[in-house]
């Protein structure tokens, strides 16, 4: 029996998960129109491979991976590309992102799918397959799985699978584990093979007994030595850093990666996508999304990426007083500007909101330093000080108080008696610091280039002077003259 550890802080918000776990995962019907952002992952994105008017097949690449941290994006169904333009992205800012608009032809025809025998193949080929199949982390960060699985060639002791799903309302991983545990374990096998991990552990919050049972059964049947661990339900136990601490007792060093602690962590749905990409040759074109909140029939749907959020929510029957949609959960999610915003790889949940369900908070009062925020912070930060510095625009102090160790989980927001939107302040401060650093780097680069240019010009002048001097018969006199000339030119 593995010894579990705890993380500091945490909260127990009401779960609201029961309603969306009564029915199995349903296949969402094919929407008439899909809006597919080319960038659905962390990292770089390439130029599109298709043009307006092109006919595409399901799984056909729309944009390849580009650079060391990237993943490809694919057409979710067969049809015609009717647009390739900026469109509101699923992001709290509502900023525009380049999307391919695909008019579905109704046939949902796949492009050629080539399974890969990962046991025999060169591991680099399997990594490339993950990259070219567009597999990214489905826990919400959308980090390219190929990069994580490669582990930079470094040793991996523990392969950790994250079945935490700690945020209220969200149940997609729960249902996936209940229904597709064997496939998830086939994906885990591949990941173990790629990372060379000695131990395989699956962490699941103990409010999911059916999922735990299903995964335990699949673990036994898979022949893989894997341990399924039930962790105490406490938000945010499903956060990567917190889960690693609970299951292994190790901490991810500040500013570092789980790899620095010998751990690589993947969401269970990501393992499932790995299995599909490698063994079935299917690139990532769909995912399970929980549709819940102010709806009559909440449930989990397997839907195509690019499905407009409004179309997906309509399947669950939003109530008449629905005033918008939240992408994600009630603690870390954000409202989308319209129902036209598409489902992307990072979308785990769509919540129909209403005034009754999520009443507007009262206006914020001053911080009274009550300390509740620090009591619940899973990173052991002092949120009231970070707020103080962010508000005063004292970015240096905010960074010194470990602002970048904040995981933006929202525990502090949840408990604040003054109803201060704390996480917003931290996001703002982080953004300011990042853009200042970028500007500084650009200025430093410009300065170094300028200095080198001056040095190069000076060197050229001296070389020219030396050449002139060595050619002339009255070498000494000429050298002196040339030198004087060069000096006078330098003064300009």
């Amino acid at each position, binding site marked *: 029996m593995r010894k579990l550890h705890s993380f500091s802080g945490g909260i127990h918000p009401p779960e609201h998960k029961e309603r969306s776990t009564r029915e199995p995962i349903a296949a969402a019907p094919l929407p008439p129109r899909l809006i597919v952002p080319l960038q659905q992952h962390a990292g770089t994105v390439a130029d599109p491979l298709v043009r307006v008017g092109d006919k595409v097949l399901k799984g056909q690449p729309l944009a390849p991976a580009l650079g060391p941290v990237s993943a490809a994006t694919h057409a979710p169904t067969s049809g015609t590309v009717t647009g390739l333009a900026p469109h509101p992205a699923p992001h709290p800012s509502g900023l525009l992102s380049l999307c391919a608009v695909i008019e579905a032809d109704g046939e949902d025809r796949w492009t050629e799918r080539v399974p890969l025998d990962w046991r025999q193949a060169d591991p680099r080929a399997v990594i490339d397959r993950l990259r070219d199949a567009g597999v990214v982390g489905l826990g919400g960060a959308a980090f390219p799985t190929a990069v994580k699985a490669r582990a930079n060639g470094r040793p991996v002791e523990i392969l950790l699978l994250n079945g935490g799903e700690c945020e209220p309302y969200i149940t997609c991983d729960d249902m996936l584990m209940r229904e597709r545990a064997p496939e998830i374990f086939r994906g885990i096998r591949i990941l173990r093979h790629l990372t060379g991990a000695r131990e395989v552990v699956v962490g699941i919050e103990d409010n999911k007994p059916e999922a735990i049972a299903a995964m335990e059964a699949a673990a036994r049947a898979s022949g893989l030595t894997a341990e399924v661990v039930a962790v105490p339900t406490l938000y945010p136990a499903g956060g990567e850093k917190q889960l690693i601490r609970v299951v292994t007792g190790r901490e991810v060093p*500040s500013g570092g990666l789980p790899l620095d602690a010998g751990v690589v962590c993947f969401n269970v749905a990501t393992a499932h996508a790995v299995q599909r990409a490698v063994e079935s040759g299917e690139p990532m074109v769909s995912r399970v999304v929980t549709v819940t909140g102010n709806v009559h029939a909440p449930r989990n749907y397997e839907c195509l990426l690019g499905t407009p959020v409004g179309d997906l929510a309509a399947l669950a029957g939003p109530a008449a007083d629905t005033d918008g949609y939240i992408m994600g959960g009630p603690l870390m999610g954000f409202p989308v500007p319209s129902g036209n915003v598409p489902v992307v790889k990072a979308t785990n949940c769509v919540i129909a909101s209403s005034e009754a369900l999520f009443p507007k908070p009262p206006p914020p009062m*001053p911080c009274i330093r*009550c300390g509740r925020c620090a009591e619940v912070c899973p990173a052991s930060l002092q949120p009231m000080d970070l707020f103080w510095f962010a508000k005063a625009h004292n970015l240096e102090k905010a960074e010194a108080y470990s602002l970048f160790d904040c995981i933006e989980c929202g525990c502090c927001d949840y408990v604040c008696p003054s109803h201060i939107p704390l996480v917003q302040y931290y996001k703002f401060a982080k953004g300011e610091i990042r853009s200042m650093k970028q500007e500084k780097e650009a200025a430093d680069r410009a300065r170094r280039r300028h200095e080198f240019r001056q040095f190069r010009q000076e060197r050229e002048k001296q070389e020219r002077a030396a050449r002139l001097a060595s050619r002339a018969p009255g070498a000494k006199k000429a050298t002196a003259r040339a030198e004087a000339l060069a000096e006078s030119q330098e003064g300009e």
Partner: protein
Amino acid sequence: MTLVAEQASVSRIMFQVLAALVPAIAVYVWYFGPAILVQIGLASAAALASEAVMLRLRRYPVQPFLRDGSALVTAWLIALSFPPLAPWWLTVTATVFAIVVAKHLYGGLGNNLFNPAMVGYAVAIISFPLQMTRWSAPTALAAAPLGFADQAAYIFGGGLPAGLGLDAVTLATPLDTLKTHLALGETAADILTMPVFGLLGGQGGEIISLAYIMGGVWLWRQQVITWHVPVMFLATVAVMAAAFHAANPAQYAGAPLHLASGATMIGAFFILTDPVSSPTTPLGKLVYAGGAGVLTYVIRVWGGYPDGVAFATLLMNLAAPMIELHTQPRVYGQRASRKGGGEKP
């Protein structure tokens, strides 16, 4: 902003503190008469009025700030630390000073460097030491106990019923009695047999202290305060008192007296726990409360005042930011606790 949140609010916290004071107020009235209610009324009115004026002057919306209850907490703490027969103008002046200067001139709610109630108390005791040391005798001990009307008349008009002098209605506090008689060369053991003392501390006063403990424990259960400040403050006072008493029982009263008398209990649970003027870090709270315990004992025994809680609080308020800086807890993923504003990673 998260879409869901706990049912928490500043006013809820403030009114919970007021509620926790009610048992002690009830005991107070039982033993010393209803004058304390007049003081609470005076201080509350003065606090709300000065807060409303200051909010207007600072161009803040009067609602919701006036309703948040923070001014009332300051008012009640002032009223409970003043003699119940204090003249009305003394209570009002101290409260107005606390709200206007100690609170609003420092930036208002959440920005006060010092505990406003203790600032009010300090101003009063330094400027009007005579009136501030005229404490009521417990009704059971007074030569001629005053009724409510007479008490109110004294507070507002300063006049006593015909034939009664102040000596008939006032009595030195237990701590004051202890200090004076120790200086006269009597032993602590003898002093503690005087009628002003009850079982452990002052008559009546020790039961009020008990009521403060009840209220304080309830506040802890409600997660309004944490255990650090009360436990550390009481432990420090107890340890210091016990140590000196063990060394010289004749000259130093023991821990039970110090814990049960004066402002020890109200200080531990209601005054030192003010979140704005005390450190936010757990270790910082322990250091702060420990320092306050030491200072309280030192002022009581060797200082010029019979009780030291108010000045101990204010002195530790001064130290609180530095204490916070040096007691930052270890952040996840970092090795040792770094000085918050100090070295870069």
